């Protein structure tokens, strides 16, 4: 069965088991490895991508549900690290090992799209991604900085 959707603005058609998690379709069929496998149960958020602008945990999201929709991954957030969050992430030197950061940034991008000037409580509620290196304080600072523009 063929599943068609747009990925980072580009139309694609995949012949995969429709139950394949979007995460693995992205990584293994489309070679978009910026989206990470962390837990497989939607607990850690390392696999966060946008589907029609909303943040989803792609490890637990069947690729079939992306059919006809627009999927954006970290590779598609900007073509040149120019997204305000990417800029703020660099300015605040947020990542440590960096493995969770694609998901962190994608979750933050949805937050800013919904709430352009989030409060600390908004950030607490929206950013539930796990970071084992402990970059949370800088994640918060960078989101505020990106919101300030």
């Amino acid at each position, binding site marked *: 069965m063929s599943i068609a959707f747009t990925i980072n603005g580009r139309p694609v058609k995949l012949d995969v088991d429709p139950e394949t998690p979007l995460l693995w379709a992205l990584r293994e069929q489309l070679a978009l*490895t910026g989206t990470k496998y962390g837990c497989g149960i939607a607990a850690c958020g390392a696999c966060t991508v946008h589907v029609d602008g909303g943040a989803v945990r792609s490890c637990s999201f069947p690729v079939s549900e992306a059919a006809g929709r627009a999927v954006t991954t970290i*590779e598609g957030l900007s073509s040149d690290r120019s997204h305000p969050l990417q800029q703020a*992430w*660099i300015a605040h*030197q*947020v990542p440590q090992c960096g493995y969770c950061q694609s998901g962190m940034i994608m979750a933050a991008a949805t937050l800013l799209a919904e709430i352009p000037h989030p409060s600390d409580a908004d950030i607490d509620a929206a950013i539930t991604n796990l970071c084992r290196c402990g970059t949370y304080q800088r994640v918060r600072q960078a989101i505020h900085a990106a919101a300030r523009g």
Partner: protein
Amino acid sequence: MLSISSIICQINIVDIDTASSVYPRRAQGGTVGMIEMIGAAAGQGISRRAMLRAGVAAGASLLIGGTLARAAGGTEAVLNAWVRISADDQVTLITSQSEMGQGITTTLPAILADELGADWGRIRVESAPFAPAYRHPVYHWMFTGNSESISALHDLMRAMGASARHMLIAAAAQRLGAAPEALIAEDGVVRHPASGRAASFGALAADAEKIPPPAVPPLKPETARRLVGRALPRLDIPAKVDGSAVFGIDVTLPGMLHAAVRCAPVFGGRLERYDAADLRARPGVVAVVEVPGGLAVVGETWWQARQALDAADLTFSAPPPDAADSAALAARYREALEQGPFRTHLRQGDPERALAAGRTLGGTYALPFQAHAALEPINCTAHVTASACDIFVPTQGVELTLGVARQVTGLAAEDIRIHRTLIGGGFGRRLLADFVKQTLIVARAVGRPVKLIWSREEDFAHDFYRPAMLHRITASLGDGGEITALAHRVVSPSHLLYVFPRAVFPALADWTEPAAPPAEYDPMAVEGVVGAPYAVPHLLVEQRDLDLIVPVSVWRTTGHGPNNFALESFIDEVAAATGQDPLALRRKLLVQNARALRLLDAVAERAGWGTPLPKGHGRGLAFAAAFGGLIAQVAELSVEGRNIRLKRITSAVDCGRVLDPGIAAANIEGGIVWGLSALRTEITFADGRAVESNFDGFDPLHLREMPQIVTHFIDSGEKLGGLGEIGPVPTGAAVANALFAATGERIRALPLSTSGFTIT
């Protein structure tokens, strides 16, 4: 195919002498920190000059091997094992250490570049292959861990940069007809200020390569160092915000297959039965390969391989009679604490007599097993042929990986190439090479490149856990509340069974098997207790070793974290029992330690120690000497019912000198989160296996639970210490002591849920 060449060194392995017998010899004297012991043993007689020559000579031998990246275009000059310069001014700096987010691949090259006079904006950093030149200068073993990269390599990097600069200046002196003393090297150019003439590093590199390296490289004065001491933007960060960073799990090779693996969930278990034909018939499955204790399914994609494995009917052996079980393990620890026999790590004065004389106070403290749970699942990619082997792996343990590869493939070291990738969290887990062994077995069987990835469940089931530890501390107290004697008993297995340099076990045919270090080189279970800076006249520190069926190994903070929880909780108990302020008591115990007093005062001031707090709020203090540095930390929290709200963690840190304030602060911030997570995570066991299997049952701290973190550094100018692990060392006790201040309840066992508390 993704480009991995940018991060992977193409240098072949030229030389190996893993069988070298230099390490370690028996140290003289009492038990001190592992570093000092081994330094005293293996480093004996090795002067800094000799070390420098070793570095240069190793570079030269790499050159003789003729495989340095010169092959890429033939225009690169190799000035030593750490510095290459191309004719078009590309300066390549080699880093021996693995990047796992600690910033080491920025700071070490910055030390080199500073001495070299390179243009920081134009340098390129390359990850070293295995070679003797890249071994830890004291342990003679190539690895990244124990917070030692800076302390072990700072002087060497400086000297190697200075050596290369000397060679460039000598070449320029010939070229420009000027005295070397009249020349300066900076921003990638050697200048002769008097005449205004100059030559770029690239133009000089080929001549410089022929200049003999100086016996004693001339170091720049401290004041001339421009990069060291500055917060540099980390070189690895840009690729980590756009998805282009290549971790091990992202490696892609032409023709690559994907392997999912499942081993017996019961420790020591075996795979007894499975239906290979059924597995091979499943979609995408290419091969089924038995690995020790389990099975790998190789597929066209990892998802297909995992699906097949999940659906397969695998029969594993039944749990043995001594199968891991948390209640039984706890009972064994308690019995060991009561019965011994104990090994004495430290005896000072007459502790038994002192303890029999006065008023005594005692406490028992229990720490649980912990998982590393790095966010990047365990993985490795390999291609094994009859004549060569390429391994692409996120590893802290390069030399162990190489040795395991030699054992599994039977290939010579020079035919094995280890390509390090970025590491998505190490924390000690990736010092090991059990997963490399699995991957090589599978790759050899299928004859094609294979990327093997563990599921998160496999990671929790087959971690090498931080061992549980059980402590009993007893003190005798003087009339003024002073501690006159302290006896500290620790029940703990060795933390070093899987990571102690394998070269010291010549009979060990499989380097993934556990091997206990000689007892006198294994003080990790008591580190921070032995070596605590407190002035107590009579001391006794003893350990009861345990041999567990649960595999255990080093975990960020090693023994320091759990040991500090026990000791610093106990000091707080003494303060409470004797009516002393916890800060005042520690100041008394450290009265002769100016460095420590400065930190205590700094943290007290910044944390507002002693200022009034609302009811239900509390502050707690803890102090640690660990990883070559000192830290004082104050936790502030509030408690409502059994719910804890973390408010602020304030630290004062002295690591000798901060080389990069930004990276240093990030290490402490992240470390504290690690320490806070350890207050509520644990691994438990039932029916021979780990109970927690994913992040639903093992729940590290989230952003919403974060306190504010404030860190203050004080440069004492003393010996450099490490920052990767010191941050979380006092965190457990600081929080537990704050909880006591807020509630009057003393926490003597972790996780906090043992006492019914939750961090919210």
